């Protein structure tokens, strides 16, 4: 039975649609569209809220394992209830607002931040039929929504009326603006090659397999691989994750723009950080890792949203792993990495993608030439720029007393 149906029609694949239709079927026709939209919002909020809760737990446990300690393991079975305990604690804590603070902005900042980081999720195709808003300019929408988070960070820093907060906000702004450029520029090749700003089209463009087991994901081309890596680096910086977590550098800036926040507002900032991380990872999956497409033809029977979730979780695990591994960058290193390394590389990668698209018709031995040229354009500047970036910097040596 399964073998005869095309994968898009199998009941597993259509299961979410069936549930939706069952729910909206009870409502009058005129309210259908509203119910569908609300349902999408509720599902996204619930799913990502839960993901947020267990991501914090996973992060704490994985960090603990990497640092050779158990991590939270008291609340509930294996500490599984820990997120809820934390949530209850955050809600019931006193919400301190400094006397000199700009009360309205102080309140608005975390709300705006969470709202903006959630907005981007609307255009992510989580599965073959799972997409909240199919916009023609979906990718642009995603980044336009993401741009507002900078504003929220600034508002938080300014409204606190605290030197450290303001300094941290300025630093955060500098970092976010610096890394927005490579983030956008590393996306442009994908848009160029797919010929569309729509996320569904981009995922469709990555469908199909060579020999049935090499997927046509963008990450498997020279420009796509380079773009993916640079996108992920910029995404790390955009979501203020280690090793780019300078805005909240606890040791220097006493948690930066979060200094004057407490209670549930503080929790909201963290929620926004994790939502941003999820959103950017989901975008990376959509743009480079084939979205919900299965890696091999014979694995298509597994529904698409499972694949998407698997890829998303892999990237999130990568985020956590990097946090446990890499030390924090200095401010000057951070900006230098963005302007002297990532931006030129992304621009070159753009040219590389243009070459790739122009040479699409090459065949026979020219196919190898195409690969060789594209790889050279990726690897050569990477080596040269990397050398220039570390020129005159000796590896740090430690002398133990």
């Amino acid at each position, binding site marked *: 039975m399964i073998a005869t149906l095309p994968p898009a029609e199998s009941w597993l694949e259509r299961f979410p649609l069936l549930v939706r239709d069952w729910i909206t079927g009870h409502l009058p026709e005129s309210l259908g569209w509203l119910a569908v939209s609300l349902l999408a919002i509720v599902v996204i909020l619930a799913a990502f809220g839960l993901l947020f809760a267990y991501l914090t737990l996973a992060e704490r446990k994985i960090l603990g394992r990497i640092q050779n300690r158990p991590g939270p393991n008291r609340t509930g079975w294996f500490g599984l209830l820990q997120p809820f305990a934390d949530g209850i604690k955050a809600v019931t804590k006193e919400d301190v607002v400094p006397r000199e603070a700009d009360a309205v902005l102080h309140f608005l900042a975390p709300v705006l931040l969470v709202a903006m980081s959630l907005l981007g999720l609307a255009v992510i195709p989580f599965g073959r039929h799972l997409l909240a808003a199919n916009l023609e300019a979906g990718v642009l929408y995603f980044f336009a929504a993401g741009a507002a988070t900078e504003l929220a960070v600034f508002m938080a820093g300014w409204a606190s009326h605290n030197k450290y907060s303001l300094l941290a906000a300025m630093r955060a702004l500098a970092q976010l603006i610096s890394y927005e450029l490579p983030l956008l520029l590393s996306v442009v090749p994908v848009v160029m090659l797919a010929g569309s700003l729509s996320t569904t089209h981009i995922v469709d463009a990555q469908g199909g397999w060579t020999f049935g087991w090499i997927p046509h994901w963008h990450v498997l081309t020279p420009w796509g691989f380079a773009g993916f890596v640079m996108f992920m680096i910029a995404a790390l910086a955009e979501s203020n994750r280690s090793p780019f977590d300078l805005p909240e550098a606890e040791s220097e800036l006493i948690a930066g723009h979060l200094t004057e926040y407490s209670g549930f507002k503080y929790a909201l900032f963290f929620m926004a950080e994790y939502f941003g991380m999820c959103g950017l990872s989901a975008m990376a999956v959509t743009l480079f890792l084939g979205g919900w497409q299965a890696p091999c033809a014979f694995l298509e029977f597994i529904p698409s949203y499972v694949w998407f979730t698997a890829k998303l979780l892999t990237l999130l695990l990568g985020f956590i792993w990097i946090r446990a591994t890499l030390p924090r960058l200095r401010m000057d290193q951070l900006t230098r990495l963005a302007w002297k390394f990532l931006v030129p590389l992304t621009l070159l990668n753009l040219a590389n993608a243009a070459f790739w698209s122009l040479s699409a018709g090459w065949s026979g*031995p020219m196919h190898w*030439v195409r690969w060789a040229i594209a790889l050279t354009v990726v690897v*050569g500047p990477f080596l*040269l720029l990397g050398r220039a970036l570390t020129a005159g910097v000796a590896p740090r040596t430690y002398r133990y007393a």
Partner: protein
Amino acid sequence: MNLSASSLWLIPALPLLAAAIGALTPRGGRSLASGAAIIAMVGALGLSVAALGTALAHPAAHLTDNFTWFSIGTDAVRLGWLLDPLTAFMAVMVSFVGLLIFIFSLGYMKEDANFTRFFCFLSLFAAAMLGVLVANSLLLVFVCWELVGLASYLLIGFWFHKPSAAAAAKKAFITTRIGDLGLLLGMLWLYHVRGTLLFYDGGNGVLEPSSLALLSHGKIAGGIALSTAIGLLIFCGAIGKSGQFPLHVWLPDAMEGPTPVSALIHAATMVAAGVFLIARVYPLMLADQHLANVSVHALTVVAGIGAITALLGAAIAVGQNDIKRVLAFSTVSQLGYMMLALGVGSWVAAIFHLLTHAFFKALLFLGAGSVIHAAHHEQDMRRLGGLGRRMKITFATFAVGMMALAGVPFLFSGFWSKEGILHAAHAWPVSQLPLIAGLIAVVLTAFYMTRLVAEVFLGSPRSDAASHAHENSPVMTVPLVILAIGAVLLGLIGTPAWPWLQSNLGGVVVPAESIFEGPGLMVLSIVLVCLGLGVGWALYGWRKRRDAFAPDPLAVAMPGVFAALAAKLGFDEFYALTFGRLNQLLAVVADGLDRWVWGGIISGVAWMGEALGTFDREMDESGLNGGFDAASEKLRGVGNAYSRAQTGEAHGYLRTLAVAFVVLALLLLLGGVL
């Protein structure tokens, strides 16, 4: 594996890409630059072999792929790629020998600070030379030809901080440019007559029968056929590039470059380009052969120049003491042989000799480079000696190269290719003088090579550098061994017993039979080789030189002759005295013209201008100024009044704008326009 003509451009494109990489690599990226160059050469070799496969499958065809470069009005300038056995054999030879030289350079240039630049230039050189080979248009050939010249200039002057190297680079560039002028003129003339420069273009190319008939029927003054004139102009380019008499003077000076460069220039690429060019346009050179009523045949001139060069080069080589200069003059002489072969009508013998010579001359130069590298850049063979025991591989391979060049019978490739030329010269109906010159050169060649080997490798070390020399690393010796094997085996494909090369090269261009008319001439030349070897051994091998300052035995025997030969028969001095003087005289005349005649006219004009100006000023100051002064006073008053409105305050301006807008809009509204 096969390669079509349309993909032929990849062969030069690969080294060109490597050159670009080398140019962009900073100084530290030694392995990147050299790796790119060598990989590119391996790729070019692979593609050349594939091209050879294609060419051998269609031996009689000229596979072309032409395209339009740009068009002026209704005329289009078209370029193209050409694949025939000649191209393919040459491309395989150039990329193979070039690859070995590249590898050798890894060791030879290891200590040089400008390693990456060197590989960039080498790749450029190889790219340009391969470009000459695959081009199907005289224009494209010319472009690559000039690129070869440029690259040779850069490489000869690689150590430009040495004044002698800089001078040698300039000399090579300018001397070859003289020949190129002829080539350019010939090209323009050809384009004027035929309207295209493509060699083969489905019946419309300049080397195809209809065009040749047209060219050979045209006559210019003095009873010379049009094709003869154009062919001789093109030959001028070959004279310059291939170091033929009388433009051979740059070639020995070019030894100032690093030794791998010498090997590249004198074995595989630059000098071969001249011979290749004549081989390429051979149908054109041949076009006047059947005409009886012309005053001169193009090929006769080629044969004569070749014979003179072969004899002259061999003679001068006898009197040189610098190891590389001996080899340089030997190259001049061998190129003379090739031209001689082309001139007397044996196209295949020339190409055969070109291929074998590429191998053994590259071997000899790289062997010399190995010696020089080991002896800390000592090149004077009077100060070397006894290296045979210290550098066994170099000695063995060098000896193989020496015997190939000298034409030691039967085993070595040089013997077979040279026999082909001598037999062809013998069969030439016009004159036997080239044969005689060639035979004398055979003796001299065997003699000076014996002298070279005896002085460098035998006897005892005559300087510190020579006594501390030791064998080089495998990166340098392995190419020597490969080249030595090639220098022996390559002879096998062209022997009278199995003329594989001749049968494949022939095609439609020229009759390709190898001319062996019996053992008589062969016996004579073997005797002559033995004579040369024997005399050389008697003078240099029997009693070894004891120290660096002992006089040369030949100088003792024939002081006058030796001094003349050592001075290269005074060509440089002769040119300096004649052309140099003439140039200086012309410069003096031009200077005088500038200074007195033109300068006088200009100062006269200037004086008149000055006088007019004075008059004008008087008029202005007395007459016109009064009126203008009064007017400006008024203007200034008005300006003052306006400037009071300029408060410098942006708000004020903006407000004025707003008010003006409202007023204008009201006017329009009231006027009923809107």
